[in-house]
């Protein structure tokens, strides 16, 4: 009796149930989930490339390079200039992708040789201060060269539009990023583990004094590591350019994100940077589904949780305790 | 019994730094721990004063188990210590170094709106006088000579008015004359202030001239604890330690 009188108390009737299921399906749209996942993953790839560069420099040089984000910005703006030189053609994009990181690497080389190399023996806070000053200068340099307007870079024709997978439209360019990220990761791994230069820089990360005792030119190793770090920042900037509007201020966001990624990953650990970037990218893009307005809160919350559970990062820092102690001690002075 | 360590174990990964150490210190005694390098003496001291946490065993101080307490609580209960490497507040003056300890002892460390310059002055000066550093009270501690820094460490420990003073190689890095003077000073402090002393030391002449009881450690284990003469005559000790070094 009661059932028939008050159907809503015991649950919706069949037709209503279908309607709710459809609404649920709309809210938790698998296609939306899929594309958010792809957006998150592809963003994580760029974050990884940039953070790996930061991590590498931190490991070998013990310099937390605050100007790293500015180098990324220069990479993006250079990519814009190069691709517009070729009238936004496909060739223009590919050339930009090849040349922009080299431009940034060159900037890095000049800075390292002219200024930074004279500061290696100084207190750590002074090095941090230096890279901050560099950030200020490079930021204004970009403003002077490119102005404060929004710029956009066109993806090559083959990478425009999207492919449909199971009804979900997946942007081709993001799929391309998904392919590039692991490529860079493997390339870095091969460089660090299989080449002589890479091995030396890894040794320098673990024990800088030992490397110099062995008669290796530590200065050259430092310069090389810094230039590689800058190259990766530039590559990240060039890769992200087609997906965002290239503008002043993009350095501020990326640098804080990369620093947090490097910290939760384990200082100097390239694989840690990959994991950290995945955490950062995915929490943000999935947060969009959950609570769009506060999506940017999620990655920071994730970092807080990781740091509280594992204060020294998820993976072991390749620089072992040496880096941490030297950073801490030098900074204390 | 003032301090009693029973079956203490502490390992770092696979390396057992302390594998069954036993130690008893009676009130008013001067106990010396000896043993070759790597025998686990410093680790044992770090366990007693709380810098490290025990894996197994117990440490009784005045009948209560203090193992696992944070260092500041162990200090509040009456154990003060010095470190093997001069361990002072480099940028503070000699006076302030000791004063900070006295203020902690008087539980005034968190007092906010009172000027510190006229607090605990008498106590601090009396300690500085008894260790002979009063004339350097205004000097920056980091600029003191090595020997003076070691003495300052002891002075800081005295600021806590300890019942038990644990000194980790108080004479490390000192010249023979300085060593002699420092040991005189320690014995004198023990007498005047009624402090029980536990220390470790490498110089056997010094050990046998000051110790009232000697504990011998070898590979993290306690070989024996006895009066100096008994230790000197013990065959196992001679083999494990005296004979070797």
């Amino acid at each position, binding site marked *: 009796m009661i059932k028939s009188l008050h159907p809503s108390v015991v649950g919706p009737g069949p037709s209503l149930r279908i309607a709710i299921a459809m609404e649920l399906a709309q809210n938790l749209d698998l296609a939306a989930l899929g594309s958010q996942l792809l957006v998150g993953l592809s963003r994580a790839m760029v974050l990884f490339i940039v953070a790996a560069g930061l991590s590498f420099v931190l490991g070998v040089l013990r310099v937390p390079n605050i100007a790293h984000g500015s180098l990324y910005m220069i990479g993006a703006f250079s990519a814009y200039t190069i691709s517009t030189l070729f009238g936004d053609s496909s060739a223009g994009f590919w050339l930009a992708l090849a040349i922009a990181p080299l431009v940034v690497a060159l900037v890095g080389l000049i800075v390292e040789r002219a200024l930074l190399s004279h500061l290696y023996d100084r207190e750590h806070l002074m090095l941090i201060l230096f890279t901050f000053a560099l950030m200020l200068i490079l930021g204004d340099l970009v403003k002077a060269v490119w102005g404060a307007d929004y710029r956009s870079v066109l993806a090559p024709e083959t990478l425009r539009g999207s492919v449909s997978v199971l009804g979900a439209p997946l942007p081709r360019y993001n799929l391309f990023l998904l392919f590039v990220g692991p490529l860079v990761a493997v390339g870095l791994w091969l460089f660090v583990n299989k080449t002589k230069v890479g091995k030396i820089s890894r040794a320098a990360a673990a024990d800088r004094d030992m490397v110099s005792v062995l008669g290796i030119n530590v200065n050259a190793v430092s310069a090389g590591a810094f230039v590689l770090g800058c190259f990766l920042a530039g590559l990240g900037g060039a890769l992200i350019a087609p997906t965002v509007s290239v503008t002043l201020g993009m350095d501020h966001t990326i640098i804080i994100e990369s620093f947090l990624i490097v910290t939760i990953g384990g200082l100097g650990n390239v694989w840690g940077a990959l994991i950290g970037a995945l955490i950062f990218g995915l929490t943000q893009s999935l947060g969009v589904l959950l609570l769009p307005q506060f999506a940017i809160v999620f990655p920071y919350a994730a970092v807080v949780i990781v740091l509280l559970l594992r*204060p020294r990062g998820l993976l072991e820092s390749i620089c072992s305790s040496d880096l941490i102690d030297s950073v801490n001690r030098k900074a204390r002075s | 019994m003032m301090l009693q360590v029973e079956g203490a174990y502490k390992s770092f990964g696979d390396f057992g730094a302390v594998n069954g150490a036993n130690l008893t210190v009676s009130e008013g005694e001067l106990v010396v721990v000896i043993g070759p390098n790597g025998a686990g003496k410093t680790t044992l001291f770090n366990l007693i004063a709380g810098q490290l946490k025990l894996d197994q065993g117990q440490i009784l101080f005045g009948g209560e188990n203090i193992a696992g307490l944070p260092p500041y609580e162990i200090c509040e209960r009456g154990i003060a*210590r010095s470190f093997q490497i001069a361990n002072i507040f480099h940028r503070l003056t000699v006076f302030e170094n000791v004063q*900070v300890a006295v203020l902690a002892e008087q539980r005034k460390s*968190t007092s906010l709106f009172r000027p510190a310059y006229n607090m605990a002055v008498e106590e601090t000066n009396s300690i500085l006088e008894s260790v002979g550093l009063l004339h350097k009270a205004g000097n920056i501690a980091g600029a003191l000579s090595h020997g003076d820094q070691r003495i300052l460490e002891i002075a800081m420990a005295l600021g806590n008015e300890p019942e038990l003073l644990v000194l980790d190689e108080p004479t490390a890095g000192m010249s023979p004359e300085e060593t002699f003077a420092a040991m005189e000073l320690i014995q004198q402090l023990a007498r005047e202030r009624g402090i029980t002393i536990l220390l470790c030391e490498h110089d056997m002449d010094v050990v046998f001239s000051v110790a009232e009881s000697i504990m011998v450690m070898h590979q993290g284990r306690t070989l024996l604890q006895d009066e100096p003469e008994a230790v000197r005559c013990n065959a196992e000790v001679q083999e494990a330690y005296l004979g070797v070094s």
Partner: protein
Amino acid sequence: MLTGIVDGRWLAAAVIVVAALFVLPSLIPPFYVYMLALIFVTALLAMSLNLVLGYGGLYQFHHGVFYGVGAYAVALILKKTSLPAGVAFIAAPIVAAITGLLIGWFCVRLTELYFGMLQISLGSLIWAIVFRWYSFTGGDDGIHGIPLPPAISSLQSSYYFILSIFALSVAALYLIIKSPFGATLQATRDNPQRCEAIGVNVRRHQLMGIVIASFFGGVAGVLFVVLEHSVFPDLLFWVLSLEVFIMCLLGGWFTFLGPALGAGIIVTLRTFAGIYTEYWTAIMGVLLILLIFFLPEGVMGFLLSKFKGRSEHVEPVPAPSLDTTAARPSTDVASS
């Protein structure tokens, strides 16, 4: 109470300076009055940071959060409630101090670089919420036209209010640094491990330092609202925190007044360079690089060593690596 811990001449000099600053507004154009007031606000922020940075040795990387929280608290209370301004002015620093307690409670478990990074992530969390919560905080627009009591709403009167609170806060900070708490805080900076061994609960002490510093950071935030009548999320952004950090280093973080000097230099530079060129940040960058190469102890440190003929700064000896908070066993501990 100040006599005895302050050299009589210094005290007299301080009184004269404050008196002169009170007379000044009637002599100079409003533009300079505004700039001076902004310097006081920024200087208080920098000095509150230096309590934990210079005296506590803590990597307070995101001090701006407490400034921003204080400013937002006063703005929200004045805009959304009918409480009197006095309540808002007192409540805001307390809110900032509670924020400091919460953030600090997590941070003091970690050391140094990790302390700083955790603080940046916690602070960015707050920034992100403020930045996006349009209905409550106004999001990236911030809050403008905050109603202030008529007595302090003109530039002239707000200047006097800011100067008075600034002078009182500086005196309070000085007393705190010279108190047993301050002396012990400096000891925890020089050697936390030794400090534990002489009976000091180092973490609790550091937490107390953070709470006090965030309280005064909140006071600076209140003063900012009094001056500008508006708040925006950039107040909590990490770039501002880093800038304040730089002010301490620039002025000399081993000294009490150094951070205020650093704040004065940077605010003045920005104001004047901003008139002539849009590239004032680059100028600041070049200046910083010159500083790094030629004045590593900061401007105040340099002046002090010039005048006294010696530096107060003693070359520190690295602390022994017995790290009580680390899980990793240290070789120094294991060997004996």
